[in-house]
């Protein structure tokens, strides 16, 4: 590569990274700013973190979000895994169509699903509350789980399952002794994706949650409308650090698992 090209590419890469991360860095720095107005640095403080943890509204919303995310993750990981296995393994009439239907939630605008769910709930006379957020999140998250898992399954050597059966393992043992351990990293990645999708989902949550049961993104939205408070910076900082931590741990574990398996 020519020296000039190399330099240009390098600068370009730096710029892209800056574009990605400078806003986040600024936010994190200002979460320690000792000033109510978020734009001028006046000194270091932990005040916003202390106030954050004494704000029961925020704490409630965080627990709501966590609850929805966990329930969504469990349901969509199980459903998605079963659906992906079925799609991967069995041929049946209309398989391609069914497979395509699972992708629709990935590409459909959130607002369409949100409104559709709202219409459905009012038609069925369902009272909106925290639980009414879950179905919408499950729809999104399941699609992503299927997507991730189908990719993993495509790399799974079918002959391994046959080898297990050849050695006397029935369907049940074949799945738990061979298939599951081999696709487990995919299931884990799918679950992680489902969790984060649910945690930061705004549109569906905004439309389908009941009064008084805010999720974190919905609460942040309503707070920001009254101006960005440094409390929100503090909250965001904590969220970012938590997510980074989870990704690092999972990434490290998956890396180790792949190494043990010879990286199928």
């Amino acid at each position, binding site marked *: 590569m020519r020296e000039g090209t190399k330099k240009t590419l390098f600068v370009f890469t730096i710029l892209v990274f800056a574009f990605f991360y400078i806003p986040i860095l600024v936010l994190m720095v200002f979460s320690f700013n000792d000033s109510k107005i978020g734009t001028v640095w006046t000194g270091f403080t932990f005040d916003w973190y202390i106030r954050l943890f004494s704000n029961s509204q925020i704490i409630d919303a965080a627990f709501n979000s966590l609850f929805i995310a966990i329930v969504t993750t469990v349901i969509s990981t199980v459903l998605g895994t079963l659906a992906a296995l079925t799609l991967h393994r069995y041929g049946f009439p209309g398989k391609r169509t069914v497979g395509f239907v699972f992708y629709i939630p990935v590409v459909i605008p959130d607002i369409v699903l949100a409104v559709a769910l709202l219409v459905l709930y009012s038609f069925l006379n369902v009272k909106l509350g925290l639980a009414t957020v879950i179905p919408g999140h499950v729809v999104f998250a399941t699609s992503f789980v299927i997507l991730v898992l189908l990719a993993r399954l495509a790399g799974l050597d079918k002959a*391994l399952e*046959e*080898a*297990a059966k050849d*050695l*006397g393992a029935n369907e049940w043992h074949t799945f738990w002794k061979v298939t599951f351990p*081999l696709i487990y990293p995919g299931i884990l990645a799918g679950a992680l994706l489902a969790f984060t999708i649910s945690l930061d989902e705004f549109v569906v949550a905004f439309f389908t949650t009941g009064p008084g049961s805010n999720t974190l993104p919905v609460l942040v939205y309503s707070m920001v409308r009254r101006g960005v408070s440094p409390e929100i910076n503090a909250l965001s900082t904590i969220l970012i650090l938590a997510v980074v931590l989870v990704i690092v741990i999972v990434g490290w574990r998956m890396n180790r698992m792949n190494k043990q*398996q*010879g990286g199928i």
Partner: protein
Amino acid sequence: MAEGMVRLENISKKFANTYAVKELNLDIKTGEFLTLLGPSGCGKTSTLRVIAGFEKPTSGNIWIDGKKVDKIEPYNREVNTVFQSYSLFPHMTVADNVAFGLKMKKVSKQDIKNKVKEALNLVQLENFAARKPKNLSGGQQQRIAIARAIVNNPKVLLLDEPLGALDLKLRKQMQLELKQLQQELGMTFIYVTHDQEEALTMSDRIVIMNQGKIEQTGLPDEIYEKPATKFVADFIGETNLFEGKVMQTNDTYATMECAGQYIIIPNNQNFLENESVYMSIRPEKIKVSAHANDKVKQLKVIMKDEIYIGSVTKIIAAFPDGQEVVAHGSRDIFKRCSQGSQLYLSWEPADSIVFKMKEKLEV
């Protein structure tokens, strides 16, 4: 129905609209080393998969050790397979791979330990028990695949081109080891290969397959010496095939016309005049001479090339119409010959094998 170890009766396997296996009938004896030999795509793997239970035959019946197994799932059949790509479980150690079948059969822990050790000893990999398969060489993985199968003491062991991925030297060594192992264990082996040399050296009996059908079943020397069809003659070893018409016949011999020359063939199939036939003659059965000899029937050819292949020299010659013929001879006879020289070929009519042309329609 219990005759021998495996019995295939009229087995057909159809994929979409082509038959991978067609109306196959085969009896495999207990303790036999039987090889399915044929070109790639002839249906060898499909036949094994039908026996193992991974494919349901489109029609036909299968017996294993006297039991009809058509409705028995693969995991309940008393056969084990050594897969073409080994298919070792990547997430388990070598020992766990070998123990897998025994665990499924709920063999006691102590027995499993002993049997795994024994099996690893048998393939000389006892020191590799704690390794993961990916940390083994191809040849070692191959041995583990064999150990993993035989540790279950199956009634029949199915092997699908198990040595295909190994280099020549290792392959030769493994051929011997496998054959020895089979004899020691007295186990029935059904072995698949497209390598005729491998089949000829290892097998008790060979089944030649072509396009889903059996062309011939026989002992290795039968297959080589007395090919039953033109396909077998062409597929096994090197041969010269001539196409021509029967001219005259008497009780013992017939004359065949080929490219303007006359060849004497044994009349053992009631040839009719004008009938189209193929004749096959192996290169080592052909006598090559630089001189005409009135006492024997000779064919005149033009020398094209000679190839030194160690013990003999391979002569490539051509008929006037361009058809090539290969013969073996010792080197000094041809010292005086060079490209373009006239050569004279002769052979015992009894060494040639003639096939009626009608089988061209079948093939």
